């Protein structure tokens, strides 16, 4: 029992001098994994205006609008819950998930992605990125 009380002290000191796991996010980012679920991206050329995505969206984040003589979904990032249902249901494989997750805007209007903004692929991450695997290798411990 006394050992149980004393042992945490040594463990605490041992951990205090180990390397930290923190990734300093705005300056260093984790590389997104293969099946990362970020903002939905539309490929306008592939879209066949079938409304499947609008029908299945649980949060009504998608809405059909007229764009270049064609009905195209418009996307509200403030409503989207990143559930991946629209991507799964799309028959023409026009929708896909990207790695963009930073949605903050000053007004609610800013969340609405009109079809031309919706179809833009997000900017590649310019900053330094770190992958989880490299982190594990460096620290010598696997995430559990």
């Amino acid at each position: 029992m006394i050992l149980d009380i004393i042992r945490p002290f040594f463990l605490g000191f041992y951990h205090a001098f180990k390397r930290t796991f923190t990734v300093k996010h705005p300056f260093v980012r984790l590389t997104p994994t293969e099946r990362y679920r970020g903002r939905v991206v539309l490929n306008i050329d592939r879209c066949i205006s079938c409304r499947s995505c609008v029908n299945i969206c649980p949060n009504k984040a998608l809405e059909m609008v007229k764009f270049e003589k064609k009905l195209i979904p418009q996307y509200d990032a403030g409503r989207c819950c990143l559930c991946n249902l629209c991507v799964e249901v799309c028959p023409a494989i026009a929708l896909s998930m990207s790695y963009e997750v930073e949605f903050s805007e000053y007004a609610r209007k800013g969340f609405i992605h009109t079809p031309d903004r919706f179809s833009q692929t997000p900017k590649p991450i310019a900053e330094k990125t770190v992958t989880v695997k490299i982190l594990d290798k460096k620290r010598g411990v696997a995430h559990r």
Partner: protein
Amino acid sequence: MILGLSFPQLIELILKVLIFPGLAFPLLFAMIVIWFERKFLARIMLRIGPLHVGPINRTGLFQPIADFLKLIQKEIIVPDNANKFLYNIAPIIAALVASLSVAFIPYALKPDGSYWVIYYTPLSLLVILAIFTARPFIMVAAGWASNSKYCTIGAIRAALQLLAYEVPIALSLASIVIMSGTFDLAKIVEAQSSIWFIIFQPIGFIVILIAMMAELSRRPFDIPFAEQEVVFGWPTEYTGAQFALIMVSEYFDLCAVTSLITVLFLGGWSGPAIPLLNDISPILSGIFWFLLKMAILTVIIIMGRGIYPRLRIDQLLDAGWSVLIPLAITQIIITLLTAQWWLPLVGGV
């Protein structure tokens, strides 16, 4: 001659009251310990802790100052049904009482044979014990005055916790008093000039360390604060500057407790003279040893927050009455039985 003191004495008094054991020292201690606590606990949890505020890059050294400045800017909110007078005065009294006890602790020996202490009294140990006992009453008053369920429950827990630690503290102080034959903290330090009391009384040291951690409501015994159960315990309703005062008073208390344990068990200022400091003044050398011992104790007390889970109130009371008190009494009996061996070694009494 002002206040019946000559000019050098007056300068010394001002130095004592405003800088070393007085005003500046507990504030600086609180600042450094808050920073160290955040950084050290973060490292135990494999995080980084505060990073960006302060002069040295990637240390976050001024984070406590930034937090304090933020807190004193905030609005002070008094709950509608609170007892306004008691509610407003409780944080001030808490900070005052917590900083009062450093006035009675001797921090160094001066070359002329007197002590570096703000107010010298031969009963300083009793005075400090009385000051420590006053703190739970402030907690109860503040918790009751807030008129909120979390505050009331936290205050009741603080009062219950008092039952667990107060008796072991008194009993282990008793064995110190038996050994040194005095209530005077300075004389207790002088009695340890050859061998520290921690060598004679390891059980008493452990008992008083645990009991003082309960007194300070540090992690394994932070039952009055218990975030998961009662939000933040008795100071839940406090905001802004009042909350800052309460937080600072916690660290003033930590300062007083570590100083007291250093004086009682670790030989206070005694230690080999440091060449460079000793040339300036032998007081500085004593203060250096005192602060070093305080720092080691502080690390041990702070570490509990990173490594232990919280006890339940019944477990704490059980441990207090059925483990700590018997251990403290055992220490008294051992002290009395071995009197013939330690009596020649205790110097100055």
